[in-house]
């Protein structure tokens, strides 16, 4: 990972960990749908951060980006925890009050996450970061793109994922 050096652990690790751990777990959980796996990813990310020289002010963005990439890598490597299904099962079907008549089944959510793993990396990262609350400027900085093109990238990703859902809905 960029900025990683071997050797001593940075002295502000505890402070940054307490501040940013929930956000890093939340970012990874959006990709993985599993809290346990998301916490594994967060551990790996903070491990790398602890040995890095990333300036503290840039830590939140760096950590979020690292969390998305690590989580996406986990999906692609196929090395996922055996408990995944159980975890997803515990979450159950979620009725989302914000979306009119949208009842997302467990299968729907699994499908969206599977499709997320198949998107171009830039789209997937931009999408997850945006839905994790990062501003367009922050996403742009993280991905080295212009703020104006973030909207286009996120829109493409959302459109692709929605098509994935609709495709299955119509074939049921």
């Amino acid at each position, binding site marked *: *990972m960029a900025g990683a050096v071997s050797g*001593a*652990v*940075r*002295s*502000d*690790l*505890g*402070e940054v960990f*307490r501040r940013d*751990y*929930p956000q890093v*777990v*939340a970012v990874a*959980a*959006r*990709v993985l*749908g599993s*809290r346990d796996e*998301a*916490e*594994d990813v967060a*551990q*790996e990310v*903070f*491990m*790398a951060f*602890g*040995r890095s020289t990333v300036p503290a002010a840039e830590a939140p963005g760096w950590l979020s980006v690292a969390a998305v990439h690590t989580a996406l890598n986990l999906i692609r490597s196929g*090395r*996922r*925890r*055996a*408990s995944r299904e*159980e975890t997803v099962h515990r979450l159950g079907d979620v009725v*989302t009050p*914000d*979306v009119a008549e*949208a009842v*997302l089944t467990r299968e*729907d*959510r699994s499908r969206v*996450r599977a499709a*997320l793993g198949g998107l171009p990396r830039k789209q997937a990262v931009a*999408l997850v970061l*945006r*839905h994790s609350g990062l501003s*367009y400027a922050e996403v742009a900085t993280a991905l080295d793109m212009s703020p104006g*093109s*973030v*909207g*286009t*990238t*996120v*829109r493409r990703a*959302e*459109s692709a*994922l*929605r098509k994935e*859902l609709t495709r299955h809905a119509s074939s049921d």
Partner: protein
Amino acid sequence: MRHPTEGTLRRLLDEPAGVPDPDRAHVAGCPQCLATLAATRRDADLVGAALATEGSPDVDAGWRRLTAALPAAAPAARPERVRPSRSRGFLRRPAAAVLAFGVVLAGAGTAAANDWLQVFRTEEIAPLSLTTNDLVALPDLSAYGDVELTGDPDVHEVPDAATAAEESGLDVPEVATLPRGVTGEPMISVGGQLSATFTYSADRAAQAAAAAGEVLPPPPPGLDGSSVRLVAGPGVAQVWSSESGLPALVVGRAVAPSAYSSGVPFETVRDHLLSLPGLPDDVAAQLRTFTADGSTLPLPVPAELATTSTAEVDGEEATVLTGNDGAMAAVVWVSDGVVTAVAGSLDTDELLSVARDLR
């Protein structure tokens, strides 16, 4: 004017202030753009809902896990609340208490990564299947008496194996041949002896049981006020890092933990603890099979995390743990009161080869 792009419409949903005024004015009066905007909003909401997650993680638990996996973590980065002297509330439940002794020992310098914190045990290594739900369902041990961790592990890095041997009094294992992909010099850490004491209180136990609407099984004579003290360490860990910062190979050795009791035999205390209301029957039954004369503690390996098997290392039976995600594996064995572990992101054959060739 031209219609704004879909990207601009998308941003309008999240950050209207980031969209130029002329574009906003156009959209407000353009049925085609308003229709596109509505479709964009539907997709965004749908995807947002599909990716939504609930709850927030336990930051303290996460921090403990991280610091245990970073044997040379800078002392300044370790918050006061995880230091042993403050850890009265740290050991909450019977199984978690067992787990914690593993963590204590790991903190004493035999740490491996992540899921391997709890691999170190004493004269015998016996795997125990516990699911996460069992752990969550167990009662709070502090309701039944006082739990106190004593001693400071003072885990610190040392420059070389000779210093580690001198400080710990242990033979520091030497890896004959590093496995493929593992290079460089290890980071060597040493930790001192740690102990923890649980003092049983019959009054408190009865109160806790009553509060739960249960009847406390009658405590054996002499149990009230008696203590169990578990001691672990010192230990030495050698860690070869990979580029990701995760350990590629960990070789740890420590004086195996032992238990001492005052007043009543350790088995009596253990069996009574196991009979406390709230402990799942099957877990209790498994725990009872351990021949704990102070020389054996169970090894809680959550079934969904790892599978266990056995192999022989230097004439001793070793426990082989393989992470279900395939990312990590470990080999652990005990010889003459000293526990040795070899763990890493390697396959089992490679780890066994390292273990058998230790000098």
